[in-house]
């Protein structure tokens, strides 16, 4: 596929953390592509490496992390021409090159709106900061106008008054809107949302999700949505990437993953969520055991110990990915008759 259609191409991303002089690989050979104007959902339980993957792409990882990748390519579309950026080769994670990309091209919405705003600055100033940083010559008044416009778009009531308020004067849902405003103000092409609604109530979650959907439909943005809620995935995503213990175990379109679920882990994940309107006496299926410690993993498939369909083959080496359908990749030995991908 040509680079006009693909906005982000990640190949063999590895992130290793150094803890107590031990090296722990948290993200292992993660590869995926995101098409322009689409939503990719990254799902998995806590500790599966979904946030670390995104932080590695944005180069937000701390000093004790080593990020290696064959390719992290971001294709910006400027006036019909494609500009390629190779994020893995940018030397300084907080240098001018990376900073120029964050904001106008790539941006991120973090999980906890309570802690991602600075309590001692007015919200308007926090939103305007990115604008002033990236547009030299813009006056504060112009920036204020832009922020007001953004607040109106995001449905924050009385923006003229609220722009001069401090974060503690906002409720959780409104704070998350401000955080989204910060991420959106420079009109980025790709927005990474890291569990944007986990801290919020369902009715507020529905509001925020409608908002993100509108932004995507009207402005053609690409979104990566990190979540553990399969319901949100079903409503928002075009493509789904399921992760377990640092590896992508299943990748495909929404229909592939929900209708032709292939990996035993994805199957178990979908069945263990309580669904409204479950028949009386119907029991939830459970995944036995708990997620293993990433510091002492055994050879073979990471899910083998909890998998109901585990065989001898699962205990050896690294399990490759198989393409069960065009674009539908599954990392499981059950599908070894299909062509291998990498």
């Amino acid at each position: 596929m040509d680079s006009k259609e693909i906005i982000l191409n990640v190949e063999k991303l590895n992130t290793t953390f150094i803890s107590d002089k031990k090296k722990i690989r948290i993200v292992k050979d993660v590869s995926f592509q995101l098409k322009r104007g689409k939503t990719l959902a990254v799902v998995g339980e806590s500790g599966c490496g979904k946030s670390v993957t995104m932080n590695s792409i944005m180069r937000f990882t701390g000093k004790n992390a080593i990020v290696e990748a064959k390719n992290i390519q971001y294709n910006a579309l400027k006036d019909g021409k494609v500009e390629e950026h190779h994020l893995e080769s940018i030397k300084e994670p907080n240098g001018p090159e990376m900073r120029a990309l964050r904001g106008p091209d790539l941006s991120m919405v973090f999980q906890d709106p309570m802690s991602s705003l600075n309590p001692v600055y007015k919200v308007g100033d926090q939103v305007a900061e990115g604008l002033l940083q990236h547009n030299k010559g813009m006056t504060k008044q112009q920036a204020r106008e832009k922020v007001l416009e953004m607040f109106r778009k995001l449905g924050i009531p009385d923006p003229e008054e609220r722009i001069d308020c401090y974060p503690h004067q906002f409720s959780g849902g409104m704070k998350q809107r401000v955080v989204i405003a910060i991420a959106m103000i420079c009109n980025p092409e790709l927005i990474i949302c890291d569990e944007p609604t986990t801290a919020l109530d369902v009715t507020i979650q529905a509001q925020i999700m409608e908002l993100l959907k509108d932004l995507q439909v009207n402005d053609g943005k690409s979104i990566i949505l990190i979540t553990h809620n399969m319901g949100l995935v079903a409503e928002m995503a075009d493509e789904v990437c399921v992760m377990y213990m640092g590896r992508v175990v299943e990748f495909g379109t929404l229909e592939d993953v929900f209708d032709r679920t292939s990996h035993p882990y994805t199957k178990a994940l979908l069945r263990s969520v309580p669904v409204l309107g479950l028949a009386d006496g119907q029991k939830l299926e459970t995944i036995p055991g708990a997620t293993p410690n990433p510091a002492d993993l055994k050879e073979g498939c990471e899910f083998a110990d909890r998998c109901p369909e585990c065989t001898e083959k699962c205990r050896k080496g690294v399990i490759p990915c198989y393409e069960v359908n065009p674009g539908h990749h599954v990392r499981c030995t059950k599908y070894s008759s299909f062509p291998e991908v990498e």
Partner: protein
Amino acid sequence: MMDNKEVIFKIENLQTWFPITKGMFKKVVGHVKAVDDVSLEVYKGETLGIVGESGCGKSTFGKTAMMLEKPTGGRVLFNFNGEFKDVTKFNKDEMFSFRRKVQMVFQDPYSALNPQKKIYSSFEEPLKVHGIDSMEEREEVMRKVLKMVNIQPDYLMRYPHEFSGGQRQRLCIARALEVMPEVLICDEPVSALDVSIQAQVLNLMKEIQKEMNLTYLFIAHDLSVVQYMSDRIMVMYLGRIVEVADSRALYDEPLHPYTKALLSAIPVADIHHKKNRQVLEGEVPSPIHKPDGCPFHNRCPQCMEICKTQAPRMVHHGAEGHMVACHLYDKEAPKA
């Protein structure tokens, strides 16, 4: 629902208000009406689910039912072998006997176990307090409850940090079961857990309920979890009950506009599921300055004139036991 309904808890006009004080002399300038005029009966052996958004008073309700929070008004009657006694007027000794019957499981298993104590001492304490003096007896009880939650008895000598989140929540449940309570109040028992672990704990709780004929008050914000667990569900909004119904009836035929909106806001993990989402405007008002009339009227899509001035009563509508507080269903109320 149970056929022979024996009431175990009778809650009448319960109010829990927290005072807001100001100035040097702590003058009371207002109240947070966390629980405001809640009346309800809980039947023996059932699971009553309590749902609502954050700040709706569901946790305070649970705590007040257990007398961890002193109510400002109303009565909590508990069935002591057929005799109803008002728990709010209990002295210290009587409270002791009440606490043996009603136990609580808290939300966060990471902070509910003392990190400096071995599981053994955390588990021994409630037994000592409730007068089981012989060590052998205590150990026998501990082993028994650990077996119920599928944790090996030799883990007693470990510290809490050696357990995973799911194991810790199971330990908390086991500790609550030690004194053989009749009622277990569970305040968001699975919301801190991952989905795969959540299912394990929920199924375990169901099994234990059958085994011990327990009554659960199951508090959670996740309606799908509550629906899975409960026989009846009570929906709360701003400290008041808006709807009580059989779990199935609430899902099939929600009556109150708030319940409808809450149900439609839940994302469904099924891509063929089509629904008309009803997105509620605005947010929950502050429990300090509650709106006049129906607390939900300023967000309600079906708000009428009367809703702005007059608070709705609880009325029966539809199936047996289905109660709703909404003017739409109150035939006797004057319509504007």
